[in-house]
C-alpha cells in the first residue's frame, strides 16, 4: 500500500480523528457517569442521615439514646441493607455503630471517626485501611439542649466503582473497533471520492502528442474534480495548439526551404547539361551544385531531428538484434576504413535484442562508425562491440583517433557542433551526425555517452533498453 497516497493518508487521519473524538467523549462519559453515581449515592446517604438526625436524634435527650438506637435498627436494619450508620456524640464518643454488613463489603469498626468541627452536612469518600472505600454522608443534629450528635450514613463505593470499571473496559474494548471502522470507513470514503481522480489520471496518462485532440471527460458535478478536469483540458488545449503550431511551422519551413532548393538544383543541372559550356564554368556550376546538395542534406537532417524531437521517430517498432544489425551495417562500410588504412575489429557475435526502428538504429551505427573513421588517422583502429551489461543493450564504438578536448566533450552532441574545423580531417557534414545519434537514442529510451582523451581516441557508448523476453 502506498503510504503517501491521499487515500491512505485520509484514512489514517480519519482514524486518528475518530479515535481522538472517541477518547475524549469516552473520558467525559466515564467521568460524568462516575460523578453522577457518586453524587446520587451520596445524596441518598445524606437524606437518610438527615432523616435520622431530624426525626430521631433531635429527640434523643427525651427518648434516650437506647430508643434511638433501637429505632435505627428497626427502621433501617443497616446490616441487612449493607449500610453503615454511626452516631457520635459531641465529644467524639460513639453512641451507635452498625454491625458488619451482610455482604462484608466493609468493616464498620475500621471507619475512622469524623474529626471535630465538620460542617452541619458533609459528604466524603472514605478510604478504608483494607483498600476499600465507603461513601459517607454526615449530618449534625442540634438538639434543643444543644448537645449535638453527628450521624453518619454510608454505603460501599464498590458497586459504583465496579460499574465504572465495566464502563472503562467497554470503552477500551470499543476503541479498536472504532479504529477499524474509522480507518476502513475513511479508506472507502477516500476511495470513492478519489476514484474520479484515478480515472482522470489514467485518461491523462494516455494522452500523448499523438492524440492531443482528445480531452478528459468532464463530470458535471460542480465539485473540485470538475474544476480540475476543466483546468487539465485547458492545459491540453494549449499543448495541442503549441504542438500543432510547431508542426505547422516545421511543415511550412520545410516547404519554404525545399521548394527554392528544388528550383536551384534543377536549373543548375540544366545549365551543367549544356555541352557547349566552357569547362571552367561547368566547374563553377558543379561547385554550386555540390553546395546545393549539401544544403539539401542539412535541411533534411534538421527536419529529421525535429521529427525525432517531436516524438515521431518510430516508423516501426520491432524486436531486433542490435549485434547483427551493427555487424551487417559495418560490413557495408568496411571499405571506408580499408581506404584509410584503418583496422576495424568487431565483437558482435552474441545477439542483443532491443525494441526499435531498424532504419533509425542503423543510422546510429552508420553515424558512429563514420565519425570514428573520420577522426582516426591512417594506421589507426576502430573497435565495434555490442554486448549486454546490467540489463541494457550496449553498443560501443572506440577509435584510436585524435580525441576530443575535455572542454568540448559535453558539446559533441549539440547541433552544428564541431570540435575544430581543422580537426575534421574530411570536412563534410554539418555537425549533425552525433546530434541525430543522441535524438535517436533518446527516442528509443536510451542514451549515448562519450569518453575521450586527446591523442589517444574516443569511445562512444550507446545504451538501450533490452527487449522483454
Amino acid at each position, binding site marked *: 500500500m502506498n503510504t503517501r497516497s491521499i487515500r491512505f493518508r485520509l484514512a489514517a487521519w480519519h482514524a486518528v480523528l475518530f479515535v481522538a473524538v472517541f477518547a475524549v467523549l469516552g473520558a467525559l462519559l466515564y467521568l460524568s457517569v462516575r460523578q453522577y453515581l457518586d453524587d446520587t449515592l451520596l445524596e441518598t446517604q445524606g437524606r437518610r442521615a438527615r432523616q435520622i438526625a431530624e426525626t430521631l436524634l433531635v429527640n434523643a435527650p427525651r427518648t434516650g439514646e437506647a430508643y434511638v438506637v433501637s429505632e435505627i435498627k428497626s427502621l433501617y436494619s443497616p446490616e441487612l441493607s449493607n449500610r453503615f450508620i454511626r452516631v457520635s456524640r459531641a465529644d467524639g464518643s460513639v453512641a451507635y455503630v452498625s454491625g458488619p454488613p451482610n455482604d462484608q463489603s466493609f468493616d464498620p469498626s475500621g471507619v475512622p471517626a469524623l474529626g471535630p468541627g465538620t460542617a452541619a452536612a458533609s459528604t466524603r469518600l472514605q478510604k478504608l485501611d483494607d483498600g476499600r472505600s465507603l461513601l459517607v454522608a454526615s449530618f449534625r443534629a442540634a438538639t434543643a439542649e444543644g448537645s449535638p450528635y453527628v450521624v453518619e450514613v454510608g454505603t460501599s463505593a464498590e458497586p459504583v466503582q465496579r460499574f465504572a470499571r465495566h464502563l472503562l473496559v467497554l470503552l477500551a474494548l470499543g476503541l479498536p473497533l472504532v479504529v477499524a471502522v474509522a480507518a476502513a470507513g475513511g479508506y472507502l470514503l477516500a476511495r470513492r471520492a478519489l476514484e474520479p481522480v484515478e480515472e482522470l489520471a489514467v485518461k491523462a496518462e494516455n494522452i500523448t502528442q499523438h492524440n492531443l485532440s482528445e480531452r478528459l471527460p468532464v463530470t458535471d458535478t460542480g465539485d473540485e474534480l470538475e474544476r480540475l478536469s476543466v483546468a487539465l483540458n485547458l492545459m491540453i488545449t494549449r499543448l495541442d495548439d503549441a504542438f500543432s503550431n510547431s508542426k505547422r511551422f516545421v511543415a511550412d519551413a520545410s516547404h519554404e526551404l525545399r521548394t527554392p532548393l*528544388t528550383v536551384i538544383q534543377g536549373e543548375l543541372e540544366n545549365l551543367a547539361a549544356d555541352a557547349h559550356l566552357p569547362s571552367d564554368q561547368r566547374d563553377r556550376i558543379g561547385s554550386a551544385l555540390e553546395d546545393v546538395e549539401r544544403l539539401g542534406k542539412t535541411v*533534411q537532417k534538421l527536419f529529421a531531428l525535429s521529427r525525432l524531437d517531436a516524438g515521431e521517430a518510430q516508423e516501426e517498432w520491432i524486436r531486433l538484434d542490435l549485434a547483427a544489425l551493427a555487424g551487417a551495417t559495418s560490413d557495408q562500410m568496411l571499405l571506408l576504413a580499408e581506404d584509410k588504412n584503418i583496422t576495424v575489429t568487431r565483437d558482435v557475435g552474441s545477439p542483443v535484442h532491443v525494441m526499435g526502428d531498424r532504419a533509425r538504429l542503423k543510422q546510429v551505427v552508420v553515424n558512429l562508425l563514420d565519425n570514428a573513421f573520420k577522426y582516426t588517422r591512417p594506421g589507426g583502429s576502430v573497435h565495434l562491440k555490442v554486448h549486454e551489461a546490467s540489463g541494457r543493450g550496449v553498443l560501443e564504438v572506440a577509435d584510436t583517433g585524435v580525441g576530443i578536448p575535455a572542454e568540448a566533450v559535453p558539446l559533441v552532441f549539440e547541433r552544428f557542433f564541431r570540435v575544430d574545423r581543422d580537426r575534421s580531417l574530411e570536412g563534410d557534414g554539418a555537425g549533425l551526425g552525433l546530434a541525430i545519434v543522441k535524438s535517436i537514442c533518446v527516442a528509443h529510451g536510451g542514451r549515448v555517452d562519450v569518453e575521450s582523451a586527446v591523442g589517444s581516441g574516443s569511445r562512444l557508448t550507446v545504451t538501450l533498453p533490452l527487449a522483454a523476453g
Partner: protein
Amino acid sequence: MRILLVEDERKVAEMVSRGLRSERYAVDIAENGDTGWAMAHTYDYDLVILDLGLPGMDGRELLRRVRVRNAKVPILVLTARDATESKVESFEAGADDYLTKPFAFAELVVRVKALLRRGPANQSNVVRIGDLEFDRLTQQVSRGGQRIELTPKEYALLDYLAAHPGRVLSRTMIVEHVWDQSFEGLTNIVDVYVRHLRAKIDDPFPVKLIRTVRGAGYRLADEATT
C-alpha cells in the same frame, strides 16, 4: 507518352516540364488541385506527377480521386512537406512512388521511366557496356575478355550504374539504391566505392567507362559509342 504534372510552384513546374519534354514526354501542367482533377478526368494520362501541397483541392484528395477513377495510372508524388506520415499516407492513398524535394532531375527521370515501364525492364541477363560485360545471374564481370573480381558492394554499384547507362546518377541516388537511406549522410562512401570499382574496371584499360560529373554524380557509358 503523356504526363500530367500537378504542381502549384510555377518555377518547379516549369523546370520539371522542361526537363521531361527534353526527354521527349508530352507534359500538361495543372497549377491547382481542381484543375488537376478536371484534367485527369478528361484525358488519359500515362503518368501523373502530383505535388501534395496544393491550393484548392488538397493533393491527397486529388490522389485518392485519381486512384479511384483509374486504378492503373502510375502516380508519382512530390512533396516539400516534411512528415513521416505523409509518405505512408501517400502510399496508402495509392501513390506508386514518392520523391522528396529537392531532388536531382536524373532521379525524377529514372523514377518516371521505371513507372512508365511498369515492372522490371526487359533486362537481359548479360549486360554489355563497351567491352565491359557482366552476367546478372552468375555476377561474373569481365572486360576485354579478362575476368574481374568484384566485391558484392562493388558489383551492386556497377549493376546500378549499368542499369541507367549514359545517365548521370547522383550520389544520393546511388546511396539509396546500393546501400539504403541510413547511409545517406555518407556521401563519400560512394566516392570510395567508385574509386575501388574504377581501379578494377577502368584503370587497367585505355578507355574509361565511369565518368565523374562535378556536382552531379557519376555516369557509366562507353563514350566512344554514345
